[in-house]
């Protein structure tokens, strides 16, 4: 479903050239739950950005749903992204000016769904995330755990094939962290493919497979 072949990402500034990813070749199958681990600066987030179609590789091939998207334009990637991928971030990235409902509704608007349909889907997602009672609240009126549940609701509301999670529990205490992990795990059981970057061995335990990155290269792949 996702496959990279010798994927390389180089960042250049005026004087410095940094190789963030170096010949990464991995494959992720439909329905898998994969964790990506490694120390700071090993390229985890860069990999996730490319897998999430937010960024493009410098070299190598990237097959997304069997299409080689390595050379896709921003517009093409945006199309693919909004139909197929949901994101969850460490710091939630909710829009402060929008309330819970509106935040979750956002991806559906960009899918040009009707208002009625949007309403149904948002409520369904909020129900699943057990946050429906806070629908009129703004992000700053919620606890961290609640905010992340809203963020997960936003990630799943359009029923994407993939969810990419970047340290989804990084800003949460262990209780709320576990709660979020159980939600993700539940989504995975219903068929959503999940790729998660994490520092936490405890979170990684929820996955089927752990990819260890070090200095931009795959160190090991542990299948459990």
């Amino acid at each position, binding site marked *: 479903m996702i496959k990279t072949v010798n994927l390389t990402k180089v960042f250049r500034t005026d004087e410095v050239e940094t190789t963030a990813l170096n010949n990464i070749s991995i494959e992720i199958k439909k329905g898998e739950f994969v964790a990506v681990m490694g120390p700071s600066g090993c390229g985890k*987030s860069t990999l996730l*950005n490319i897998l*999430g179609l*937010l*960024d493009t590789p410098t070299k190598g091939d990237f097959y997304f749903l069997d299409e080689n998207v390595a050379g896709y334009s*921003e*517009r093409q990637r*945006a199309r693919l*992204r*909004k*139909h197929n991928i949901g*994101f969850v*971030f460490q*710091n939630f*990235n*909710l*829009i*402060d*000016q929008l309330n819970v409902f509106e935040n979750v509704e*956002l*991806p559906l608007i*960009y*899918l040009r769904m009707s208002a009625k349909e949007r309403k149904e889907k948002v409520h369904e997602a909020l129900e699943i995330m057990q946050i429906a009672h806070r629908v009129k609240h703004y992000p700053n009126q919620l606890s961290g755990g609640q905010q992340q549940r809203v963020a997960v609701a*936003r990630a799943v509301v359009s029923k994407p094939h993939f969810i990419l999670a970047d340290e989804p529990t990084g800003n949460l205490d262990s209780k709320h962290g576990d709660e979020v992990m159980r939600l993700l795990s539940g989504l995975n059981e219903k068929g959503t493919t999940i790729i998660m970057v994490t520092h936490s061995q405890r979170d990684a335990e929820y996955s089927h497979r752990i990819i260890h990155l070090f200095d931009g290269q795959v160190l090991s792949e542990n299948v459990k």
Partner: protein
Amino acid sequence: MWINYLKIAFRNLIKHKLYALINILGLAIGIASFILIWLYIIDELSYDRYHEHAKNTYRLVNVYDFEGVGENSASSPFPVAWTLKSDYPDIIQNVTRVFNRQAPRTLIDNEFVSYNERHFFFADSTFFQIFDHEFIMGNPNTALDEINSVVITESTAKRYFKDENPMGKTIRIEKMLDLKVTGVIKDVPHNSHFTFDFMASLSTMRKPYGGQLPRTWVWNPCWTYLVLKEGTAKTLEKSFPAYINKYFYDAEKENVTLYLQPLVDIHLKSKLDYEIEPNSNITYIKILGVIAVFLLIIAIINYINLATATSAGRAYEIGIKKVFGAFRSQLVYQFLMESVILSLIALFVSLFIIELLLPHLNNFSGKELQIGILIQPVYAAILLMIGIGTGLLAGLYPALYLSVFNPIMALNNKLSKATKGGLGRKTLVVIQFVISIVLIIITLHIYEQVNYFKNADTGFDKENIVIIPISGTTISRAYEPFKEELLQNPNIQSVTAMDDMLGVAHNTHEFRPEGFPEDKWSFYPALVIRYDFLETFGIKLVAGRDYSEEMKTDPEKGMLINESMVRHVGWKSNEEAIGKKFRSLQGEERVIGVFADFNATSLHEPAGPFVLNIKETPGVIVFFLKYVAIKVADQNKEETIAFIESKWNEKEQGRPFEYNWFDQELAQLYNDEEVLGDLSLILTAIIIFIAALGLYGLVSFMAAQRTREIGIRKVFGAEQGSIMVLLSVEFMKLVGIAILIAWPLSYLLIDEWLNYFAYQMNIDTLSFVIGALAAFAIAMLITNSRAYIVARTNPVNTLKYE
């Protein structure tokens, strides 16, 4: 410490090149425009103030009001000046009369050259005691004492005498009278309500008038200036009724009022009949002043706006400084210093811009403005205050605001939430757009009004008519043969003559219409003309007949009046007026024809009763023939002019041939409006430019604030287009609000301005639409150009630091 501040200030400038450029440029252009207008206004206000007695010098104005007809005359009868002086010796310190024979041109020659001079005057010997002019040669107190003496300006001396010493040499006027040069003065400063190249002794005119100057109290050709003892103007004006009663003719007494017009007010406030030169208009100066102040305010607020917007990005630096022990006061100094440096740079740049533009402004306005005046302590201080003040104001907000932040918050870049302050900025954008839209609409209207004037149906033809000034010429004494010879040419369709320029100026003549009481004489606007006047100018005859050379009694007994006159007298129809009698100074005249109303002067004034009259008394006829008007065919104009010139040269040996196209003469009536239109176009462009810079800054600022939000939206599928819409919609709303305010405001302002004219174009709705569309287009262009950049940013870059 200060070195460190300076270092950071300059590095910041370099780091934020675009902002610095926008900021400096916007402020510099604002200050430069403000100073340019300021120089212009200082100059306009300086007219005639260079004379020592300026404050106590007045011009006597004569108002003749005969139930709505008559004149407001800037000039007075000959005897007025000296009878006033001798009747009120305690009040009036000095008087002088200025006289130009009511001749638009005076032929001057000497052995070398000859010119038709426009700036030739006679004056009493006291002239140079009242008006201070720097004498290069001669004595100001005695230069005009003798008859046949003349004072000339430096450049006139060069024209007539090259490098020779002109003192004691002679020039000849109208090939009749020799004048001896008794003084040479520096050229008359441009900031004088009239300029002259020659000032001859008025006593010279005694001889041509038969031994003494005219004693009539009816003819009023002398511009009369009085120097009063300080604070006595009101007292003198109170005694005018008694004075009028003592001297003026019984028939006039009731209808004449005199008043004093301060010399220093003439240039800006005087719009009388028989002005020596057209004056400026205080309203236009006020309009310019208001625009200038707006411009400066917009530039300053914009500068503050941009400066504060950029400062939000400095939170990190502030955080580090605070962590390492900076006091709040040190941070405040740093911000203020940076901001003042920037505004002083802008001030400096503005001086360059002024230096660059001043020659163009001078060229365009006919002035001699100099940047040097700004070195004077007062002006230099004001300039510096603008520079430093703007800098302080701009620096104060970020200085006080940012320096209070908790360093942890600042380091974590959590300031974006706190630095919204959106309402103030939005208000500013709205104000800028209101001003821009109003100015666009007003500028369009000024141009349209000028066009309307130029193309308006004034009731006479303007095209293909050549005007030749002939006063004092041989041709004026033998006009009919000249006309006959001209008509030989098939390209010359019609020829006539008149005593003033139709559509520009006219005299008034004394009449008593039939049916009016015995003592009820009125001065009616009138032109003295020759045959074929109606035909040459295409004026419609609506009843009766035109003057005819066949009818021998026409010149003495016949007159033409217009439809307004028919209504004024109270006759029921134009036909009824035919054959009616008017008493005139020549006896009795009958109405032979009624012509359609035309605009005898500019369209600032409405058309009223008017008389066209032929006078044939020998001696008088020469005086009244000042212009020949020749209607020529549309083709072969150059040949026709050459033909006219050849005929002129046959008759006028040595007198230069001069001609003007009638339509161009008329267009000069609206110079004021045209200059105002051009100026307001330029200022509008500048204000829009500055407003655009400000908007660009604001859009950038808002986009920067919303970077994270935009990033999130993009991650969840927003495409570039929808991000651009997101960012622009807000500004379009502001422009919409601005339009709603600007429309009624413009309407009121234009309505007010148009009231100044007797003939107004309709308020033009299209220009309202244009103003609004222009504002939208500008806002769209700017917001989209910025939003495009933001919308293209990869969300990975904006989100990863969170």
